[in-house]
Each structure stands twice: as structure tokens, then as C-alpha cells.
């Protein structure tokens, strides 16, 4: 892998590297021998450590537990974290969705209550948007929130709610107005997952795990203090935040992707049969295209960070990056699977470890073109909002 030249005198990057070198056990690095799939508590402790070490909540204000730095430092930390192949966050919906929304529309009291615990991994969040009848067409959601004095009561069904089996809070989108109002009359709540009337029914996923669930809500009480933003403006504020989030969340992706490519190549090169195969012209082309795909992801991320740092708007650029990353990542997973499946029978621990990683990646990767707005939805956004194509003539 051609290494990146570091800007000289980059003190922050040195700090991040040094911290990771000292604090990350090899067992957490998926491309290293001795890696073991971490359990929930290991992940929780590791992520709490990342925050304590200054590597999470980087751009958040100090008074809410953040580190008060800029998005440029956020990028640097993500690059370094991505390179190491560390566990994916078990609280990304808290850190990258709920947190920024609370920061944008929450009251001072809500910021004080929610932000620091989330960074310290004392509160894990999930996102309750999708419903059995409302997926791509989110505005058709039916979960109802009705007034109960100053407080609220919520009933309905959420589905595909990631991390809900172990979450403490749910960023819940529910309807306060009429169904015909579509986007208007949708409100956001910070719902307690241990509130009476919340039932979580895990759903088995294609890889056999159960990271998401159906969440059934039966007359669940929600405190007035847990409503985020006004009942009819929470959603529009959330959409503004989401456009930026789509472009900036999981910013380590390109660098983690590089780690995956390097891992695959190392495993193949260490196996005599695969070493011969990967050196052939067909795989040359496909490997080079993947390198270029990764450079394009970086090409979306790095200039976008600069624009945001300069206070510029980024519009719907997040859709471009998400679309490209998800499809490129799937192409890579297919390549990895195909290569590793050509290994001859017999024990090769490196190939076995890589196969485990990339079989999992292949299966999980199928979701990347579905969640956070499907490929078709992103293409629609580009047609409607970026190209502004006329609708009917």
C-alpha cells in the first residue's frame, strides 16, 4: 500500500498515533494474528478509552464532554483509527446521529444530560425511524405520539432498529400530526428503552447475528423533557443535520477500506497458490480499480472537510460518497471472497483468518446499499436535488 506522506510538524497526528500505539491491544485489530471478536463490554470499554484519550467527541464543545477541536482533527483521528482495523463503534448512532441532533435542536438541559454520557459510553443509542410500512418512504411512518398533559405517549412499531437489543435510548421519530401531513408533524424523542411498553424482538440477520430488532411500542410514556425540538420542527432540523452527517459519518471508511485491501493482499501473498493468482493480469486490474475507488472516497471526504472547516455548505454531497463507497466496498468483498476461495485445501491460518473477515464483510456489505437511504433513494436525490431534473411534462 503506498503510504500517505504526512504533513510535517503534524503534532496532532503524532499524538493520535502515539495514543493508539500504546492503548490498542493487538487482539482488537482485525488484521493482526491473535484477533478475537470483541464482546459488547470490551467494545464499550475500548470506546470509552478512545474518548478519554481525546479521540471521540473531537469537535464537540468541552462543556458537553467533547474536546473542542475542529473537523480537521476529527479527520486525522479517523484516518489513524481506520488504518488499524479497529472494531466498529457500538454507539455510532449516538455519536454520529443523536449527538449532533441534540446539539442542533436540544435544550441546554438536554445537552447536559445526554452528550457526555454518550461519549463516555454510559448510554448507547439506537435509531427508531424505519417501520414495517415506512422504509424508503419514511414520511409514511405511522408510529403516533399523543399528548399526555405535558408529557407524551407513543404507540407503534419500529423495525430494523440496529443496536436496539443493548441500547439505553432511542432517537425516535413519531407522528404528532395527521398521516396526510407527511413530513410535517413528525417529532423526535429521546426515548428510554427501559420504559414500560417497549418490547425488543431481535431479528436474525444474514450473517446469523441479531444486531437489529423489531421494537414494539405500546402506550410508552415519554417525558416532556425527552422531546427533542418542537413537535413540528424536530424533523426539519434533523434533516439539516443528516445531510452533513451523511457526508461526514464514519469518516474512517476509506482508511479502513485500505486496511482491508492490505490485509487481503498480505494473506494472498503468504499463500503460494494465491500469490500466483493475485499476480495475474486479471487481478491486477481489479485491485488497481479498488485502489482508485478508495482514492475517490478520500476525494469526497478530504475536500469536504476543508469546505466544512471553511464554513461552506456541502449540499447533498453525502449521497455521492455513500453511493460510491457502498458499491465499491461490495465490489471489493466479491473480489476478496473469490480470491480466497481459490486457496487449496489444507490449513493456512492467515487465509483462514482473512476468509473469516471477508466472508463476514461480504455478507454485511449487502446492507451498505440498503441502510441510510438505499442506492435507488440516493440516485433519486441526485436526480431531484442535484440535477434538478423536471418531474412531469
Amino acid at each position, binding site marked *: 500500500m503506498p503510504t500517505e506522506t504526512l504533513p510535517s510538524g503534524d503534532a496532532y497526528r503524532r499524538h493520535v498515533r502515539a495514543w493508539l500505539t500504546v492503548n490498542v491491544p493487538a487482539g482488537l485489530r482485525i488484521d493482526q494474528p491473535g484477533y478475537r471478536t470483541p464482546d459488547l463490554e470490551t467494545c464499550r470499554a475500548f470506546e470509552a478509552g478512545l474518548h478519554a484519550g481525546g479521540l471521540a467527541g473531537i469537535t464537540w464543545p468541552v462543556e458537553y464532554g467533547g474536546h473542542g477541536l475542529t473537523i480537521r482533527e476529527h479527520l486525522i483521528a479517523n484516518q489513524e483509527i481506520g488504518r488499524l482495523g479497529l472494531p466498529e463503534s457500538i454507539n455510532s448512532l449516538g455519536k454520529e446521529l443523536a449527538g449532533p441532533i441534540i446539539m442542533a435542536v436540544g435544550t441546554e438541559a438536554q445537552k447536559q444530560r445526554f452528550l457526555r454520557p454518550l461519549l463516555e459510553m454510559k448510554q448507547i443509542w439506537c435509531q427508531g425511524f424505519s417501520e414495517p410500512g415506512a422504509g424508503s418512504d419514511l414520511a409514511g411512518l405511522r408510529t403516533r405520539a399523543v399528548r399526555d398533559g405535558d408529557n407524551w405517549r407513543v404507540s407503534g412499531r419500529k423495525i430494523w432498529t440496529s443496536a436496539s437489543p443493548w441500547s439505553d435510548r432511542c432517537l425516535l421519530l413519531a407522528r404528532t400530526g395527521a398521516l396526510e401531513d407527511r413530513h410535517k408533524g413528525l417529532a423526535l424523542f429521546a426515548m428510554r428503552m427501559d420504559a414500560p411498553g417497549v418490547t425488543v424482538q431481535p431479528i436474525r440477520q444474514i450473517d446469523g447475528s441479531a444486531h437489529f430488532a423489531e421494537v414494539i411500542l405500546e402506550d410508552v410514556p415519554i417525558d416532556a423533557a425527552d422531546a427533542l425540538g418542537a413537535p413540528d420542527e424536530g424533523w426539519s432540523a434533523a434533516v439539516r443535520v443528516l445531510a452533513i452527517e451523511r457526508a461526514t459519518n464514519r469518516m474512517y471508511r476509506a482508511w479502513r477500506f485500505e486496511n482491508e485491501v492490505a490485509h487481503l493482499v498480505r494473506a494472498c501473498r503468504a499463500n503460494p497458490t494465491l500469490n500466483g493468482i493475485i499476480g495475474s493480469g486479471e487481478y491486477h486490474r481489479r485491485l488497481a480499480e479498488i485502489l482508485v475507488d478508495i482514492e475517490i472516497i478520500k476525494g469526497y471526504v478530504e*475536500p469536504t472537510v476543508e469546505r466544512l472547516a471553511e464554513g461552506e455548505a456541502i449540499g447533498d454531497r453525502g449521497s455521492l460518497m455513500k453511493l460510491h463507497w457502498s458499491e465499491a466496498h461490495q465490489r471489493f468483498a466479491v473480489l476478496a471472497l473469490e480470491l480466497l476461495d481459490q486457496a487449496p485445501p489444507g490449513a493456512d491460518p492467515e487465509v483462514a483468518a482473512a476468509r473469516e473477515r471477508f466472508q463476514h464483510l461480504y455478507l454485511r456489505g449487502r446492507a451498505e446499499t440498503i441502510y441510510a437511504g438505499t442506492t435507488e433513494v440516493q440516485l433519486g436525490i441526485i436526480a431531484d436535488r442535484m440535477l434538478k431534473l423536471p418531474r412531469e411534462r
Partner: protein
Amino acid sequence: MTNDTHDALTAFAATAANAVAECAGLAPRARATCLAEAGLIGVLAAESAGGLALGLDHAVPVLHAAGAGLLGYPLLESMLLAAALGGQAEAARIVLGEATATIAWAGRATLAGGRLSGTVGRAPMADSADLILVLTGTGAALVGANAAGVTVRPGDGLDVEAPDCEVVLANATPLALLEADAVDAIEQGAQLLRAAAIGGAVETCLAAAVAYTSTRVQFGKALVSFQALRHAMSRQKLAAEHIGAAIARSLMRPDDRLARAAAFAAATRFGAAAVESALQLHGGMGFTWDIPMHRHLRRIRSWEAQGDAPGLHRRLAAELLTANA
């Protein structure tokens, strides 16, 4: 980027677009004058050669306009060569539009005893050029297109408006020599500027597809209302944005050779497919000589060959395999 730079780049783009449009009605020689008067050929060249001595970031919008407007002039080659020649007399002639220069991108000439021989190729518009840069094993040599021992003959590229030519050298005398690092700078710059030109072509073709599908009615409605076609145009837009993103990042990291290579590789891979898709959306009309989709496609395929996109991919893969042995 400061606001001043941003304004300067916008101004460059506008000047370039105007000049490119004007060139369409001129003979090749007159195009040189037109481009020189607009200050475009000397964007990268030294001030002592009459150039502006600006960076590649200023050349990108110029080539973008050239690609968008199908400019029939070896502008990329002239700009890079004028810069590489520093303060030499030929640089000034190129910048002023007195001499048209091109580069033979494929093959190597042999330089022995101060004389050049061999056959090189992929020299766009060498048939109407005055100066040709040919690569040697260790650097490059500039020859006069009409000098003794230099024969220009048609090549076999797809582009008919800026045709690739072959150059046969038989004991030709070089006018000037370039060292390896100067040649490297030319090749690196060319990767970026070809990407910019392809990006421009994609945007022109996408705009044509949007315009055509917005007016063409089938099944009782404008074609643009069919989702399959909307999504096809979204993918064309995505291609244009991929190219733009890779270029922007490469400009931020001038010494990053992978980023530079990726800009060109992204442009060839996504750019050609986008133009082919725009052609498809024109139906039978897209298959006609009069609709310029094929002209863009021919040009892009020629740039791809001039930059040796397949060889570039092979090198990138080889580096990846070496780094992870």
C-alpha cells in the same frame, strides 16, 4: 482556498470557455493565436517565456473547458511543454501561439551521438504542429515537425478532430533536451489535466442528455420522467463528481502520486462509461455523426490511450503487491 483564488479560477474557466467556443470556427493555426491571446497556453509557463507561472490548479479549469467544448488543439501538451522548457526560446514561441507544440506519448526514440531515431506515436495533432516532444529512454527531446529526418504520418486513434499521429525519426537533430524529472513533471501534470478534460466532456454530455430527455416525448410524456433514465443521469452526474473529487484531492496533495494517478484512472473508467450512457439516452439520434456524443467518446478513448490507462493500473497493482509482500 482563499476567495481570491476562487475568483481567479472562476475567471479562468470563463475565459477558457469563451476562447474554446471561438476556436471552433477557426483553422488550427488561428486557434493558436486565439488561445494565446486569451493567455491560456502560458498558464503554467515561466514568466521569462511570457507565461503566467501559475500552478496546475489554474490549468484544471482551462482543460475542463477544453474537454467540455471539444477544443481541437493540443492545449494540454502545449501548456505542459511550454512550462517544461523554462526560459528557452521555444517556450516563448509556444506561449505566444507562434508555434504549435505536441507530445508523442507512446514509444521511445533512441538518442545516439546527438541524433534521434525510431518511431513514436500517440502525438495528438502532430500533423499540424511545429514542435514535437519525443520521449527517449532517459528524458525527452524536442524536434521540429518539419525538420530533416522527421516524418509525421497518421496514427490509428479514434479521434478524427485531434488525430493521434506517429512520428518517424531518422537521424533527426533535437532542438532541445529535457531531463527525466522534467518529463516526469509533464507526465504527472498530464494525468491531472486529462482528468479535467474528461470531466468537462462528461458534463457536456450529461447536459445534452438532460436537455434531450426533457423534450423528447414517448409514451405520452417526456422521457426524463422515467425513473430508469433519471437514475442513468444520476450515475452520469456521479461520474462527473467522482472525477472532480479525485482532481480536487490531487490538487490538495501535489506530491501524492497515487492520488494523481487515481484522478486519471477515475476519469477514464467512469468518464467513458458516462458518455456512453449519455449516448444511449439519445436513442438512434445518439448514433448519428451530428450529435457530438461520439466526438467526446473518441476524444476520451484517445486520452485514455495517450495516458496508457491499462499500464497505469498495472503499475498501481504492482506497487500494492510489493508493499504487502
